[in-house]
Every structure is written in C-alpha cells, then in structure tokens.
C-alpha cells in the first residue's frame, strides 16, 4: 500500500465522518485550540510589538525574548507543564502560545520600525495624537508584514496543536497518536493529511484577509 491508498482508505471510511472521534469533531477541536493559542499570543505579541516598534525602545528585549522562546521545545514544555499542573488545556496552551509569540512579536516590531519616518513626522507635526499616529499612520502601512507574522504563527500552531492529543485532549493529533499506538498507519497518514490541508486553509484565510484589510495604496496595485 502506498501513501495515497492510506489516504483514500482513511477518508472513504464512512465511520470517520461521525461521532466524537469523527473528522468534523476533531477538526473543530483542532481549530479551537489553534484560535485560542493564536488569540492569546496575538493579545500579547501585537500590543508589545506595536508599542516597542513605535517608540523604538525595547528592541533588544524583544529580540531576546523571541530567541529564548524559540529555543524552547514545544513537546518538552508540554510534558513539563503536564507533570507540574496535571493534564488539561493549560499544558497544551502554554507551549502553543510560546511558539506563536516570537513570529508575531518580532515581525510586528520590525514592521512598525520599517515604516517610512516622513509620514510619521508629518502626522505628528500636524497635531495627531500618538495613539492615532500608531494606529492610523503606522499600522496601515505595516499591516502586510504584521499579517505575515500572524500567518507564520498560525501555520506553526496548526501543525503543532497535534500535541494536544498527547495529554488526552482531542484535535487532529488524536489520529496520529492513536494510529501510532495502534499501528494503524491509515489513521496516521489520514491525520497528517488533515493537518496539511488545515495549514493550506489557514494560508487561504490570510491571503483573503490581506486582500480585504490592506489598502490598495500600500499593496500598490
């Protein structure tokens, strides 16, 4: 049997489409973990990145935090926290959030830093308040880069959220972990395929968001 046969067998089994272990349920769980982790990471990374980028202060701290966070292995963190606080959502969320913050934080910081200083000077000189300068002058121009940071974070979280299954939670990781345990390679390959498809769907969502949110004057077309 080759990989395509595994995939075909997995998706054509009607039992996969129903119930608590069905594909719709597992997809939903996976998307929920992803959105939650991404939401928390963005709630931390975006404001910190925007403020440090705007003021130009704290750039070294941003770089240090990002590098340190990238050095932490997600799986190791998961096991460590599970041992400390027990099984649940927390040991899953912490490694995912730690994984998602560096790309969001660093790209947002760099995006705001790289905005042409002339319009910012003009805005300040015409009496615009600082929060407006950040949100109405810098952010719209920095938006394509900010979105690209969110996108790489989202892709990494989508693929890494499979570890939730290791601490008895759901998500697409369920198929991979159970499949490996049961030596059911059809399940493993099917789960991996679902993760890949979800990553592609994430790319599509970000492509659409960029089309909608970024001004034609910034996209230059």
């Amino acid at each position, binding site marked *: 049997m080759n990989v395509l046969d595994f995939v075909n067998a997995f998706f054509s089994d009607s039992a996969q489409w129903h119930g608590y272990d069905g594909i719709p349920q597992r997809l939903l769980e996976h998307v929920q973990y992803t959105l939650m982790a991404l939401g928390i990471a963005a709630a931390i990374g975006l404001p910190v990145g925007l403020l440090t980028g705007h003021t130009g202060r704290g750039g070294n701290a941003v770089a240090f935090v990002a590098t340190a966070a990238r050095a932490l292995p997600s799986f190791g963190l998961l096991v460590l926290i599970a041992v400390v606080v027990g099984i649940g959502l927390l040991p899953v969320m912490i490694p995912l959030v730690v994984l998602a913050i560096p790309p969001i934080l660093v790209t947002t910081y760099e995006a705001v830093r790289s905005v042409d200083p*002339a319009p910012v000077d*003009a805005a300040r*000189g*015409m009496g615009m308040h600082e929060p407006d300068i950040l949100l109405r002058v810098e952010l719209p121009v920095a938006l394509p880069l900010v979105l690209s940071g969110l996108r790489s974070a989202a892709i990494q979280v989508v693929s890494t959220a499979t570890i939730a299954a290791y601490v008895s939670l759901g998500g697409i990781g369920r198929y991979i972990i159970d499949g490996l345990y049961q030596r059911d390679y059809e399940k493993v390959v099917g789960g991996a395929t679902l993760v890949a498809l979800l990553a592609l769907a994430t790319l599509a969502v970000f492509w659409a968001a960029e089309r909608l949110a970024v001004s034609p*004057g910034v996209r230059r077309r």
Partner: protein
Amino acid sequence: MIRIDSVTKRYPDGTVAVDRLSLEIPDRSITVLVGPSGCGKTTTLRMINRMIEPTEGTISLNGADLQQQPVTTLRRSMGYVIQNAGLFQHRTILDNIATVPRMIGWGRRKSRERAAELMERVGLDASLAKRYPYQLSGGQQQRVGVARALAADPPVLLMDEPFSAVDPVVRKGLQDELLRIQDELGKTIVFVTHDIDEAIKLGSTVAVMRTGGRLAQFAPPAELLSNPVDDFVEDFLGADRGIRRLSFFASEGLELTTDPVVRVDATAEQLAAPDAPYLLVTDAEGRPLGWAEPGDLTAGDIVAEGLLPYGRPFVPGADSLRAALDCAVLSPTGWAVAVDAGGRVTGVVSQQAVGEAIRAAHSAADTGDARAVGPADIAKVAP
C-alpha cells in the same frame, strides 16, 4: 507675529544646534531661513511647532508663549510641509488632504469638499482625487503636501525644505505656485531651505544662519544682495550677487528710443533717416524680425531671413533690469529690444543706457529711495 527670543537648543551631548537666536517673523509674508547644513535652520523651524523643545529662551505667537498651549492645538493651527511630502500611502489623495479637517472634527463630506477645493487651488487635477500617493510624481506629491497643510486654513505655514527633492524645472513650477497661492491667501510662512536662490526668490525677508546655529543676517533679499554683513554671507550669496540684485530693480525707468526701428515695408527715405549703426526691422504689426546695418537694407526688398537675430526681448514693467541687461548682452548688436505684452516693439535700448540705469538705480537705492527696492512690490519681479 512669531517672536523668537534668544532661543538656544542644546542637546544632552553638548551639541548646540541653535545659539541665542532672536527673530521677529512678520505676519502674512514669507520668511526664509537659509544656511549651510548644520546651521540649525530646521531645528529652529521645528521649535516653532514644538517638534523640538528649546533649551532656553521663548517663542511666542501674537504675544502668547507657545509653551503655554497644548501641543496638539498649537500644531493644528500651523500647516506643516516637509521634504518628500510625507504623504500617507494608504490613503487616497483626497483623504490625505482631508486629514486635519477630519482630525478637528469636521464631517467626512465637508472635509472632502474642502480637500477638493484645495486640490484645485494647488493646481492638481480633480481626476487625481481617488489615486494613491505612489501613483503621483514627486512634484504632484509635494502639491498634495501643501494642500494638506492648508486644509484647515491655518494662519501659519511651516515648510521644511519642501522643494529640495524635485528636479529644477518642477521646483521652479512649485515655487511660482507657492508665490501665487501666497498672493491669494496671505499666510505667515516660515520656509527652510539650503538654496540661496530659492531664498531670494521666495523670501520677503531672509534669515541667513551660520554653522553653530547663529544668525548671520536678517534682511530683505535686495538688501542682502547689496549689503552682505560679512564675508560669510557674501560667500554664501555666491559670486554674481551684483547681477542677481538687478532682479529687484524695475525696468520701467529705461529710456527707450524708437529711432532705429523701421517697418519691413519702409521707404528708402525712412531707411536713410536714422543716424544709427543698426536698424531693427519689424513686421507690419510691429513685431521684431531682426537687426541689420543700414547699408544692407534695400527698400521694398527686405527679407527676414537675411537679418541678424534680435535675441530675447524684454517687457518693461513686467521684467526687471536683470532681464533687460540679459537681453542687451545676448543681442548681437548690443541693443536690447523692448516689447509690450502683445509682443510689439515699444523701443530699443543700448547696453550703455542699461548700464546708466543700473548706476542710477544703485544710487537711488543707496540714498534710500524705496521706489526701486521696495521689497514688497518689486521684490517678486521675475529675473
């Protein structure tokens, strides 16, 4: 009036950008700050809208200390134009111009109407309203920058090297446009440049600053050209300040003669009459055709192709003495041709006569006869 009173800007590392500067910037006219890089001209400008705070001294507007006003209120009462325009690339041209009206609470509709009105005033085609900055040329972007600064009708306009980044032809167009707008609106304009020619062309008063942030001379351009206060100012003005000063003298006083002027259909008697080394031949309507020596002309058989070129004519009243002198120097006969607005010859004048007029204008200026050098009325005669 903006009053700068012994203002010093010293940075924490000890660098002095502006050193005990005092200036009184008159209302409703263009005051230019000019000087080499590092002379503190931009720092001075940015202290007026408090983008930079002075270390010592005070700046006041109509008697009120700027330090006592909320900084955003102050800035909203002063238009601000910078080099490269600094447009918001995510906003359309119309919305760029409408920025300050929107900020001070005008409705969207009213702000956009006002923006459209300003586009027309600065010479931008209405079809550009929905474009984005990247779709405009550098000169057009700078016009948008000026329109944006004027949008809320501030009494004061601060301009920081606004035309430095465009090519000379576009720059001249922008300068002429600024003078025209200023004629209509009468703003109090503070204009920073490193280009002395721009300073002399635009300024009613020019402050020449020297490295170290000190004022070298503060005077109307004609006075600057005739009486530079020291070697630094003289060097900065350049080698041909004598010629450039002539831009400030009117050419009306020149004594024109029509003796050597003949029409293309002149009779032999008319051709023989003048006692002049050269004759200027005009067509039947009086437009110049060219010069010739009297002996080379045959009545009834004068062809334009055989004549010497007459160079570029000048218009007495509209052109300056500098233009008249230029015409006389360019003319192969040494005589300048004067024409009226319709291009018809009103007379000719020799280099000697122009030279005498220059001497007369100089002595009139030196004895304080303001007729020839009044900065406000004649200062803007195009060179």
